[in-house]
């Protein structure tokens, strides 16, 4: 059996779902060691692993891109991993590529499917899957939402091995603080109906069209990331990886392509209806119903019937 190290991601005292997803998958593929940095109290949550390696130091009490990479690199150098699994998350992105270069081993990123000898990456905004052959020691970064988290949630008392922290004297990155998002006017995570606008909406002048439709449906407006980056809507309306996770009764998308980072935030919705003129848009792989009409025709057509 191959030896798989799973880099545990935790935030504000709890283990993140991506870790359980990876643990569940890793168990199918080999012997699992969880690498838990900065909070050894969480080891008891990692029953799916055969062993947990913990590293603690004051510099590791909050996530620190430089100190964490250094620590993971040290753990991997001292261990017997054949494969290192890292989340393709904000924290994981600070580790995976750097580890691959430091260890001089391959990295396969955006993994959504994994077998013992191959990893499938979701690329091109979810439009193309790319399978890579893996053999020998490697790093794999896993797209959140790819594997069931429940498969990796297990009670148990894995063997815990405490490792000394590396020397952090040369570390230049210092954690300062966390900035919490400002509360919005509506909480999109509690809405039954969300009408979600994407880049297909073209301009901020068209946002009122979406607002009107949402009001008629008794719901609120949410959106994809570019809408927030363009400052057409506030951050509290963003659904996805760096936004919010939502599970409304209806999620109606207008001009959203369905990039993996968006899908992460909405694929659990009870009913997903997608409107997109591109019949190959990945959003249709996740929607229950799809429509390839122009959204500027669809909105008035729908509004007039409500």
């Amino acid at each position, binding site marked *: 059996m191959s030896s798989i190290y799973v880099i545990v991601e935790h935030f504000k005292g709890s283990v993140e779902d991506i870790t359980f997803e990876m643990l569940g998958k890793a168990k199918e593929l080999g012997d699992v060691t969880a690498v838990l940095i900065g909070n050894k109290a969480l080891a008891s949550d990692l029953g799916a692993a055969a062993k947990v390696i913990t590293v603690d130091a004051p510099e590791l009490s909050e996530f620190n891109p430089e100190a964490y990479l250094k620590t993971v690199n040290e753990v991997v150098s001292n261990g017997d991993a054949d494969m290192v699994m890292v989340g393709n998350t904000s924290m994981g992105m600070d580790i995976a590529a750097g580890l*691959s*270069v430091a260890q001089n081993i391959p990295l*396969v990123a955006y993994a959504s499917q994994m077998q013992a000898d191959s990893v499938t990456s979701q*690329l091109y905004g979810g439009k*193309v899957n790319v399978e890579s052959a893996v053999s020998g020691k490697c790093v794999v970064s896993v797209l959140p939402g790819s594997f069931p988290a429940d498969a990796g949630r297990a009670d148990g008392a894995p063997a815990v091995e405490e490792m000394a922290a590396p020397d952090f004297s040369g570390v230049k990155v*210092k954690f300062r603080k966390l900035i919490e998002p400002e509360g919005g006017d509506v909480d999109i995570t509690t809405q039954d109906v969300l009408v979600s606008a994407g880049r297909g909406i073209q301009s901020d002048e068209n946002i009122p069209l979406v607002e009107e439709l949402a009001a008629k449906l008794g719901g609120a407006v949410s959106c994809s990331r570019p809408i927030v980056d363009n400052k057409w809507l506030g951050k509290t309306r963003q659904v996805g990886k760096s*936004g919010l996770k939502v599970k409304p009764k209806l999620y109606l998308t207008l001009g959203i392509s369905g990039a993996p980072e968006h899908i992460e935030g909405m694929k659990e919705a009870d009913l997903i209806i997608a409107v997109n003129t591109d019949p190959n848009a990945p959003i249709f792989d996740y929607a229950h119903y799809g429509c390839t009409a122009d959204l500027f025709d*669809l909105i008035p057509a729908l509004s007039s019937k409500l």
Partner: protein
Amino acid sequence: MNIVVPIKQVPDLVEELEIDGSGKDLNREWLKYKVNEFDDHALEEALLYKEANGGTVTAIVLDSDGIDKVLHTAAAKGADKVVKITGDFGDSVSSHTAGKAMADAIQSLGFDIVMTGVQAVDDRDGQLAGIIANHLNTPNINVVTGVTKDGDNLVVQKEYGGGVVAEFEVATPVVVGVQAARETPRYIPVAKIRKASRGINIEEIAGSMDGSAGSDVSRMFKPEGGQGAEMLGDDAEAAAAKIIEILKEKGIK
């Protein structure tokens, strides 16, 4: 501060992507390329930093078809220097090969900050920023939404999920992967790009070719797409009527 901004082009996803005869790459014959949108944000953030604090911005690319226009655009937006790394990298160059060549060129140019896009749609073997940083032996912070100055140090904001932002302080040199600039990337009219193309000299550096992805593509395929959506067609009126029916059935409206 010398800020270096690696930029690359990626296939435009608006076009239909086809897989070539080998089954291992895209059919690139008719592929349309565009600048990686996150690189565009990286350039914007670099220019905002320069405008506030002084310094220079250098845009750097690997040679490929149509890449001069990318450099001219960067110059028109305000880059002080534009550099092309020459060599036979090909269209499907791996992140590890590109990252090594970039790092070697950036080392020779000298730098305080490297800002590049947090990811690209074709980064099969990982994100460029982390690769460049480790070759340059500097810290690396990704998913960055702002780089500002505080005394001698930089303050870097990094996004986590749920809209939470972590703030870090770091002494240069550093490599950051930019998710979004503080401002929407500036738009430059074509006439200005044309003008810039006449006024700027593209510096060329011969690229090193010794980076390798270390893994091979065995197959490329379109996702089967779960169970797939039931399609309601492209007629707005008919689709709207059908949607109303579905909503009624589900008790939503």
